[in-house]
């Protein structure tokens, strides 16, 4: 690998991640009871995480973990969507020979008559700087020597 190769990669990382999330205007299921969601979506930890998430906005009266276990939410139902799409057009035309916009369909859909459940696996950005840096990390393991 040469210094020139690294420069090429830097250019690539700035264009290779999707930007547009496309979600239906209307939910797939309106006012779904949270316990019902946990059952249908097979996610027993949902309520605990949702309670913790809501608590994080309660800056004046943040509950400790111990009290959080007994906390109740000020709502008991949610509007639920069964999927969304990414627009991958930020990749540029080189990846799509037809030059048409490419879409990535992602599902979180419980089982229904004639259709099995589908909960897709995804890559999540967990730090603020990973998209802007193109997921570039540093390492001291790699050295270049030339003469």
């Amino acid at each position, binding site marked *: 690998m040469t210094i020139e190769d690294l420069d090429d990669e830097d250019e690539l990382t700035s264009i290779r991640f999707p930007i547009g999330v496309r979600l239906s205007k209307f*939910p797939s299921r309106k006012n779904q009871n949270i316990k019902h*969601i946990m059952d249908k979506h097979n996610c027993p930890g949902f309520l605990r995480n949702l309670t913790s998430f809501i608590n994080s906005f309660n800056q004046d009266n943040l509950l400790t973990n111990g009290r959080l276990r007994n906390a109740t939410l000020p709502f008991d139902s949610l509007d639920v969507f069964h999927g969304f799409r990414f627009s991958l057009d930020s990749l540029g035309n080189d990846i799509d020979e037809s030059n048409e916009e490419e879409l990535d369909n992602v599902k*979180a859909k419980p089982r229904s008559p004639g259709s099995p459940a589908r909960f897709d696996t995804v890559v*999540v950005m967990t730090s603020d700087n990973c998209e802007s840096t193109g997921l570039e990390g540093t390492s001291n393991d790699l050295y270049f020597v030339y003469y």
Partner: protein
Amino acid sequence: MIFILFTTKIKIWHLGTRIGRLRVIFKLPEKIYGSWPSPSSWPSEPLAYIEWFDKLKKTAEPYHDLYLVTKPSLLADGNPPGAIIPLSSIRQSCHLLPDFSNGVPSNWTTDTVLDNCRRFYLNSFSSKYAYQTLW
């Protein structure tokens, strides 16, 4: 002859990212306690509930250059580690290949293998997009 030594950056594509399983896509309600408006500090954007896989190792596995993806241990309350995140923080979908090195148990099917298998490989050959981004 002159030798010049450089210490430089290498690409760790997954720095600041984590693999997860998307369980619920939802929005917080605009009304609480029946009729009160919800706090303005609550996000109005769509949210997602994710169950995490373990963080990826720094490097891919030898021979096939695929990253190993494993399920974490359950928490003390018996639930898998998870988080509520903005839907917009999901970067892309990804395909996981089950680790077949110990055979194929009878309870692994297309619809159940993500539930019943604990070791996978991140498939960077699932699409041209994955090939360009998951390495």
